[in-house]
């Protein structure tokens, strides 16, 4: 399986370790991995006026970085997101990547009368790996908007048989070194099997 790993290791060294563990896990189990590191690439998260004006045209990818990401999405069989939860949802970096890369013609198509139609049926597996500063109970109570975005809204663009999985570390802020290394191991072992 060809897997695209989208990571946003903002403000957090640990999230970078998680991303490395995910990459290692995928490669060990024989998958081809492409990585989009939003911090290292300085991927612009902000939809510009040029992006917006091109959005509903036949050629919506005016930014070369978004176009490169979109090409990776089109050739991928699996999509994996790694991020620290921010304001109960994905990081602004991941949100910006979704807004600017998963445009009409890549993730979905817009008919005249029918509304949006799924367009990413090549993606057979969707995985989210997220860290949360809150306790699991608080995340359940407040709602997990990042998970909802990926497992519901992005998932909708996949094929009917696209499966999705979630690997979460709750209470990450207060985690001990042992808990952190246990989580890294869980990611490395778990992600390849998915």
């Amino acid at each position, binding site marked *: 399986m060809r897997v695209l790993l989208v990571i946003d290791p903002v403000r957090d060294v640990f999230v970078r370790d998680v991303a490395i563990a995910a990459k290692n896990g995928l490669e060990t189990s024989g998958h081809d991995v492409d990585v989009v590191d939003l911090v290292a690439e*300085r991927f612009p*998260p*902000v*939809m*510009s*006026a040029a*992006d*917006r*004006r091109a959005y509903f045209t036949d050629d919506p990818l005016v930014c070369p970085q978004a176009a490169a990401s979109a090409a990776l999405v089109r050739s991928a069989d699996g999509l994996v997101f790694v991020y620290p939860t*921010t*304001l*109960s*949802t994905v990081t*602004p*970096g991941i*949100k*910006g990547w*979704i*807004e600017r890369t*998963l445009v009409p013609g890549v993730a979905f198509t817009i008919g005249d009368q029918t*509304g949006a139609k799924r367009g990413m049926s090549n993606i057979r597996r969707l995985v989210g790996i997220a860290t949360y500063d809150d306790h699991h109970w608080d995340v359940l109570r*407040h*709602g997990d*908007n990042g998970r*909802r*975005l990926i497992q*519901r*809204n992005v998932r909708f663009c996949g094929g009917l048989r696209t499966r999705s999985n979630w690997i979460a570390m709750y209470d990450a802020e207060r985690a001990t070194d042992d808990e952190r290394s246990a989580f890294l191991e869980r990611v490395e072992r778990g992600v390849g099997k998915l």
Partner: protein
Amino acid sequence: MVAAHPCADSYVTAARERVMTGLSASGHDSILIDLYATAYDPHLPLPISDADALQTATSLVLVHPTWWTSQPAILLAWLDQATASGLPGVSVLASVTTLGGSRFANFLGGESGLRVVNRAVRPRCVQRPPHRRLAFYGMDRSTADERAAFLDRVERRIGTLVR
């Protein structure tokens, strides 16, 4: 008031103007932070002028389109930075937003934008301000009359929502 739309000729920008008109007509002073016009950069710290405006603000009004069920990335980044201070002066949060799909489609989609403010921004504010929202559902299939009616409603109502 914080506005987030890249295009000056957009419907959201028109709504922003009507918010300004409605606020001044009902006797409120408003400061506009246009994230695109001021070229807000999420990679830099919060601009000092924004922090100053937040110190004196009693209400925070967000005017934005809804993309992928929630606020644009630029606004999410700004909210994350701006609410770190706890916004001690703010006693009302208000949103004026447009949504492409119908109310039912957005219900199925999960309404993340509404939840982000209610359940993540609001708990960060010292006063736990109420969130009041003027939302235009079904933008994609709306008629010119409906769009004009929503702008009128925004202008008429916004003054009564803020404090």
